[in-house]
């Protein structure tokens, strides 16, 4: 045991220094030099003020904006300092109630819309910070936003198209629309 103690302690210290100090410092240096925008949170500025991150969603509830995924973070939705999913199980009645309430809210904001609600628009994301919705979820909200803003449908459709990303490299992930970027583009229309 005794002849194990020195190597155990010294190697633990040396490897801690290497992997816990030098390694993160090296990666920080490289990332800050090569990808400063990404390494610092992909922040978006408007009029010189940080208004959000292109990677982190925000809460929208006005009919004038596209709404994002429901967020289960606490105490407020889209809390960027406390990421979380709902963790509701598939047969939990609370899940069914929450989904019904979200459907009702969407219908109340747009009573004329009789289309089926895209499932991603009424289910909570994993992180509570999902910046995206599906193109179908954007299309579902198109008319409501255009009417609320007195914009032409074609104009809003063009903005949706401009903010829709396909699968990465045509292969990975799913097509999606960045909600914050789309809403900022809407605000910039006038």
């Amino acid at each position, binding site marked *: 045991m005794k002849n194990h*103690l020195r*190597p155990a302690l*010294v*190697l*633990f210290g*040396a*490897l*801690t220094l290497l*992997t816990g*100090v030098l*390694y*993160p410092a090296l*990666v*920080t240096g490289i990332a*800050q030099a*090569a*990808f400063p925008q990404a*390494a*610092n*949170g992909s922040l978006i500025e408007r009029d010189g*003020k*940080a*208004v*959000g*991150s292109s990677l982190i969603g*925000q*809460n929208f509830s006005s009919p004038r904006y596209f709404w994002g995924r429901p967020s289960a973070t606490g*105490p*407020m939705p889209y809390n*960027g*300092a*406390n*990421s*979380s*999913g709902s*963790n*509701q*199980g*598939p*047969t939990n009645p609370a899940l069914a109630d929450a*989904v*019904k309430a979200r*459907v009702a809210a969407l219908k109340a904001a747009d009573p004329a819309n009789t289309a*089926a609600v*895209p*499932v991603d628009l*009424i289910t*909570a*994301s994993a*992180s509570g910070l999902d*910046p*995206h*919705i599906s193109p179908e979820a954007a299309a579902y909200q198109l008319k409501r936003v255009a009417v609320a803003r007195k914009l032409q449908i074609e104009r809003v459709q063009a903005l949706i198209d401009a903010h829709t990303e396909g699968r*990465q*490299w045509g*292969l*990975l*992930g*799913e097509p999606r629309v960045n909600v*914050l970027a789309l809403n900022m583009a809407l605000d910039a229309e006038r």
Partner: protein
Amino acid sequence: MQTNAVLQLVLYLAVLLALAWPLGAHIQKVFSDETPRYMRWLAPLERLFYRLAGVKADEEAGWKGYAIGLILFNLIGVVAVYALQRLQGVLPFNPQGLGAVSPDSSFNTAISFVTNTNWQGYGGETTMSYLTQMLVLTVQNFLSAATGIAVAIALIRGFARKSSATIGNVWVDITRATLYVLLPLSIVFAVALSGQGVIQNFKPYQDVHTVEATTFQQPKLDAQGNALKDAKGNPVLEDVTTTTQTLAQGPVASQEAIKMIGTNGGGFFNANSAHPYENPTPLANFLQMIAIFLVPASLCFVFGRMVGDRRQGWAVLAAMTLIFVLAYGALVSAEIAGNPALQQAGAGSALNMEGKETRFGVVASSLFATITTAASCGAVNTMHDSLTPLGGMVPTLLMQLGEVVFGGVGSGLYGMLVFAILAVFIAGLMVGRTPEYLGKKIESFEMKMTAVAILVTPILVLAGTAIAVLATAGKAGIANPGAHGFSEILYALSSAANNNGSAFAGLSANTQFYNVLLGVAMWFGRFWMIVPILAIAGSLAAKKRLNANAGTLPTHGPLFVLLLIGSVLLVGALNYIPALALGPIVEHLQMAVVHH
């Protein structure tokens, strides 16, 4: 969507194999004490470490010496992780001023990160300072993975050597695994991730001014800061409006890289690899999935090379891959079939998007969930608690199989080789011959140790689950009603004892009861496997290596692969089907009945 599900799997396996093959050659060189040419510039650092530590690199130990050194090294890790969490409030690199972590949570996290489990009772961005994240959590991500590799290499030496009294030098194995394998891979991977948007900085959390104001309810506090209650004892709520969003920051990319490569899985943030700052793009997600299986897959090739018959490595890899493909098929089918309750509540489809991110969707989330629980990683990009009943049963079962389907770094291979010993033993019983594996006679000592290694985790899982469902403190943690609540507890114990670390995260596990229960399960699940496995390594190394003859069961063909898969599934099924019937299976039947 089914086509895409198949395409993603094929693409994944192809890229994995293309990378694991050369990495296997590299790792084999590293542990044959032949430092690869392109890494020799690190050799002076290695020698410096040995000189400071008083290690003679060419002095090897028997299995007992190896085991004592390894456990001592890991105990030091436990003390360090515990101490730093308790002290972080007064230490630097803590811009949010986060205070000391509670004693029971610190204990749990210390065991969790040392045992390569990375179960997290806490939420990262609300609990851990940057110093804690780097100086103990990132470090243990490396060292627990290095420990796993060392044990796997020691066991391989047991098969490869003949009439040897030693199985290696534990200090050399840990140092070389870190320096020549884990660190270079992590640097490359961390930089790639940060290019995709994973953050890497030491800034305080960033406040931004949101585009639209958010109104929400929170409990009203009195002047002393206590929550006000109304006449019925319910908390009084007040409406609050804010235009500030606070974005957590930190050195994430460096931790994220080794979190995947070391099959650790402990997230920097509470939402783990679902958080856009940890896993921002589908490409980052694909790379993370590759990183999880990369070292476990390449160790199969290392095994084949070191025992001098590459077909042996392919056979083990084939068995792992077949089980993996079956599991993925089951999980992704269940998630695509989805949850009829969503459709009934007004959704356009039943597709199970609850707890999933849009950029990953159902297919990439299902693939990730299968990979992370087949390996003992435990990182999540989807909330497993919200998977469909059968979709959630697959990760549970994969963990319960003992984390041998690729498994953890090192631990997957040594776990699978124990099952291989069991398989040749069963085959030997059937034909009445003394079983052999790779020319080594499998005798009563090896079988006793194999039985201990295979039975320790089911005992911990089933006894632990029984304790938790009987105890008031155990039931108090349940978040979802009915059979799903039982599944939450079964999942937690399966995850802890098999050192996975993912969770049905609705379970409130950051309590004294769960912190202690799961801490104990993690420790014994790890080291009550490692010690018997090192004992097997020592015993095998001392034996002669027999030549194969007409009566020897070949262990590189399809027959053996099926026998191996059969052994894994048989043991898993016998241990766990009754428990699974009470959780996910009941819930699935309830879901089907209610909606037809």
